[in-house]
């Protein structure tokens, strides 16, 4: 019986193999004469201009991962293709990225641009950028984002992340000397004094990039947290108020820090960000440094300290003050693919896309609807931002570009210039802006 079953099974298998073999020999005739079976689907293209970042060997470019993820989401949703155009200067003699951006935007070379604060301001003033306030995603933006990217009443750029700078402090050292975390410049000076008296000669670790945050915190604490922000900016833009008047307290404060040895000006002038002051801070030799939000999340920066670290705002008369700056995406007003570019940007800035971006890079989202838990160390800074207490390090609405210019002038101070000389530079810049 069993043998018979095996024989039957073998016969069925054999028949199956024969049928399969015969079927495999068959060939389907082409129904038509055209041998091209399908053509590539032509997609609408949106050209995106951004800086080219050097890729690591044997690795995909990680720096743009989060942005790429949102681009891919938008591409899939809209059925369009984003074509990257990039530029990065090889050396100081070549045109800067901002220069090229301006030229390309002015010649309508691309549809979408990733713009630095100064180019946002310039192109916004030139009317080259589209008003993005009509975008659906723009409705979800935080107020700070809108303020920072509004030129002549038009929202000309929108960022994918809000970059907040703050003071990174060693809480344990503050506790050790019975010090409260500083709220005002006076508090800060007192803390530095106590630290210095206790053998910490240079309580503040600094580099040549981020000391300007002390200046912004003191200069614009009232401007951005008062009720007359627009009027005050307007007064500055029209020359009724002077930038130097705003900036002076901050510069004098920095000068005092330098004079009392709380900051090593020479070391700061030659130090790159984190590389210079970071090791001493992590070794608990320096209780105070300054850095951007992401440094607290990054292991190669301050992501893994051996002590209790807290990130707080810079001292101002209004208390701790985070300094916020941002880059943003703008659309050429005369873009070849204007509608597609608008749709693309709308999707890239949707809450869904920003959630992906924010989770990937663990930053503050420009959308008020997107909240990602931050690490405990960032909580003081995050709380302030949530309370809308901050100053902007860059503001497209101001005719004098803030972030870059202030940075350069602080370097002058570090290099030995007086506060008055620095203020003169601001006055000159304001005068030039008024001429335009």
């Amino acid at each position, binding site marked *: 019986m069993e043998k018979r079953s095996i024989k039957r099974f073998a016969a069925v298998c054999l028949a199956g193999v024969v049928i399969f073999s015969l079927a495999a020999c068959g060939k389907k005739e082409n129904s038509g004469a055209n041998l091209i079976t399908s053509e590539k689907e032509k997609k609408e293209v949106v050209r995106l201009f951004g800086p080219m970042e050097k*890729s690591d*060997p*044997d690795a*995909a470019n990680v720096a743009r991962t989060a942005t790429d993820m949102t681009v891919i989401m938008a591409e899939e949703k809209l059925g369009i293709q984003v074509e990257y155009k990039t530029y*990065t200067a090889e050396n100081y003699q070549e*045109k800067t990225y901002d220069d090229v951006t*301006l030229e*390309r*935007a002015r010649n309508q070379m691309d549809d979408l641009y990733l713009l630095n604060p100064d180019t946002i301001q310039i192109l916004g003033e030139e009317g080259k950028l589209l008003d993005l306030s009509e975008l659906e995603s723009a409705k979800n933006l935080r107020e700070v984002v809108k303020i920072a990217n509004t030129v002549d009443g038009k929202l000309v750029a929108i960022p994918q992340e809000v970059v907040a700078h703050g003071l990174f402090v060693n809480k344990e050292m503050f506790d050790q000397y019975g010090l409260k975390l500083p709220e005002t410049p006076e508090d800060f000076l007192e803390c530095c004094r106590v630290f210095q008296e206790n053998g910490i000669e240079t309580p503040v670790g600094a580099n040549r990039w981020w000391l300007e945050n002390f200046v912004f915190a003191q200069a614009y604490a009232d401007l951005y947290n008062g009720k007359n922000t627009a009027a005050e900016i307007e007064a500055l833009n029209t020359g009724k108020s002077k930038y130097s008047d705003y900036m002076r307290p901050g510069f004098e404060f920095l000068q005092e820090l330098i004079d009392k040895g709380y900051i090593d000006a020479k070391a700061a002038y030659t130090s790159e960000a984190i590389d210079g002051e970071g090791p001493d801070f992590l070794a608990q030799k320096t209780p105070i440094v300054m850095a951007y939000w992401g440094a607290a999340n990054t292991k190669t920066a301050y992501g893994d300290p051996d002590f209790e670290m807290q990130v707080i705002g810079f001292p101002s008369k209004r208390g701790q003050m985070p300094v916020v700056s941002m880059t943003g995406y703008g659309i050429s007003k005369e873009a070849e693919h204007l509608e597609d570019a608008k749709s693309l940007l709308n999707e890239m800035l949707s809450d869904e896309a920003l959630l992906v971006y924010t989770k990937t890079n663990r930053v503050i989202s420009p959308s008020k609807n997107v909240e990602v838990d931050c690490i405990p160390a960032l909580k003081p800074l995050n709380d302030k931002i949530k309370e809308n207490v901050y100053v902007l390090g860059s503001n497209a609405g101001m005719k004098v570009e803030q972030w870059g210019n202030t940075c350069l002038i602080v370097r002058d101070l570090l290099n030995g210039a007086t506060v008055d000389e620095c203020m003169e530079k601001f006055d000159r810049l304001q005068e030039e802006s008024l001429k335009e």
Partner: protein
Amino acid sequence: MKKQQKNGGQNKGKVLLCSIITVFCLLGAFVFVMSQKISEEMSSSAIQNLSESLDLMKGTIEAILRKEAEFQKLMAQEIAVLPDPVEFVRSYQKSQSIVKVSLIMEGETEGISNIGELFSKEELDFSSGKTVDGLPVSEAYVNYMGTWAYSIQCPVTKDGRQIASLYVEYIYDSFEKSLPDGFYNGQARLYVMDANSERMILKPKGMGERDAGHLNLKDFYRANKISEETLIEEVSACVKNGENILFYHNIRGKRALNYMWAVNDGSLFLIGYVPVEAIQQEGKSVNQNMFTVVFVMLAAFFLCCLLYYFSQRQQNKVRKEREEEREIYNKQLAQALQAAQIASKSKTMFLSNMSHDIRTPMNAVLGFTSLLALNAENSAKVKEYTKKIMASGQHLLSLINDVLDVSKIESGKVVLNFEEFTLNDLVSSVDAIIRPMASVKHQNFHVRVTGIHHEYLMGDETRMNQIIINLLSNAVKYTQEGGNIWFRIIGLKQRSSQYEHIRIEVEDDGYGMTPEYLETIFDAFTRAENSTTNKVQGTGLGMAITKSIVELMGGTIQVFSEVEKGSLFRVELEFRIPEERMDETFWENSGISKMLVLDSDLESGRSIRNLMKDSGIFVELAASLKEALEQMKMNEEGQEKYQLVLFGWDPEDEKNLQTAKKLREFVSPEVPILLLASYDEKGIEAAIEMENMGILAKPFFESALKEKISELKAWQKAEKQQEPGKEDRLEGLHFLAAEDNEINAEILEEILKLEGASCEIVENGQLAVERFARANEGEFDAILMDVQMPVLNGYDATRAIRALEREDAKKIPIIAMTANAFAEDEKEALEAGMNLHLAKPVDIATLKKVIQEFV
């Protein structure tokens, strides 16, 4: 030999296996080589294709450059003839490729451009010396539009004199539309590099990774980990010399073919890489298909091998089974042949024996018949000769009976005739036959019955007789003179209440048998032969018949024997116990309700009590005369006296007779005293002379006791009523005998005449019927009927007679007298309506007995 064959088979298998492995190795090597070759060819072809693609792109770019140069020359010619060349330039509208047009008049350092800016030659670098269609072409630079551009310088000549230089700026982005939208299925990477600055100036869409870019050649090396100095030097040399180069190098962990393809004499380079897997995709596909085909073929081959293997295994199995079967058949055939040879030998021997055995008595018959004829006058000799003739004839008859029995058993025609019988009858008849035989040889014959619960049993008494007599007669035959023979009937534990389980043992201390002979003792036509037994006569069929009958009865027979020590035959049988007994009132009628057993062997006494337990008679035992007398005294005083006394005659005790006398004296004369003994015990004759004393043959059976009681009573009665000697004769009786054989008829007539009877002979059954029909009522006292007769046989004749409408037709005794001597013949005779069956030759004593019984 077999081992050698096996080794040979194993070696063959190994050779075959090695051959297959070798073939597969060769096939594998061939496939590998072929796949390598295909890969190489495909790779070479792919490189060729890549080269062609790059050449095509190169040609396209160069064509664009040439067209641009040609167009620029035409433009210069037109400007040369224009009255206001500056206005022409200023009013020139930029296009997708020409984005800036500038003119510097001869002898000036600055000129004008169509975008309204002042133009200086210093802005451009023509130091590389590269040209397009003879016109100098500048290094790449980022133009006012923020994109990579180049300018071509063209002299504006009028009347053979250069009046100005025309600079036209072109953007590299314009190449993009002329280049393919990705190749090698989008896996290839392509950049356009300016040779002089080694800057990447174009990354056509679809031909570069979206998430990575290369700033310059150095960055290309760094990002792709190209760090080999010799390679970098070689590449640099090629770039410098405007030569093409292709080289393999891993890109992101994958082997890739890197290329640097010079365009426009090396002013530009197409740079990029294609992963090898993309290049060899077709080759890989071919190889995969080839491997698939090979795999399928191998699978098919292995499948075939598997099927072949299973088929072979199956065939081997079948072959092996057949061989085994054949071996069994051969063995069986050999055994059968051996058996046949043995049988043949046995039969030959049997015939020889039979020839001898038949001739011997026949010789005696004939010899003594001759002597009888010569000495007819001498009555003493006549008696002696006739006695010997009789003995020889009887021996001859037994021989014939045995042969017929075997023949009957072998042909399966034996039918058992189940009837009620008593062990007493069985033992008595056996004893009556064997004891005289044993006495002749001065052998002691011991009979013992123990443990029997039921004496009346259902079975074929005749066959039982046959079994026991066969065994006992053999024991007598094969035991030397003065030896001992034991005959035991032992009651075994009943397996069922309806069956009596008995064992019959026949033991002797005679010659014994060899183990070899024991193996064939139950085979037909064998007979123990040695110097001692050669003189013993027999057919050699007895044991075969015995065994067959035992098995037919559902029993078993075993034999144990040792040479010179004796033999023991053990037969075990089960007999059904009859449900009802007709003579249950015998004891009541006989007036016996209490008896005394005097036996020094108490075991024997208990056995008697056991056998009598169902009879209702109270049995008391006494081991000695004294004890017996005491008990009798006590009884005398009591209300109930003994109505019967049994006295166990001890052959060893010399005071038996005295004891008997004392018993007789003490017991009242009307109470019978029975001596439990053998008939040939010493002194017993004197004992039975005493009044109302008789012998009850050992062993004790209730039926024997009943019979003896009846006999005693009948004797007492007859003594009073009849004259002695008359009952032995058939005086005055008249028979009708149907016998077709004249001699037999004559013998019968003579015998009956000697007994004072007469008979009328008829030749067949038909005549017998007719004769009886004609006869007067009471004319014939009985009919003696042969069975095998012409016209009408005995059975049919009997039926016809019984069917006659005569009053005496149903009553008249019809006695079968036939040579058909088997039990089934007897059964048939009785069924036909005959009263009795007598086998020929008719024994006169038996005839007399049965006639007296029925007539």
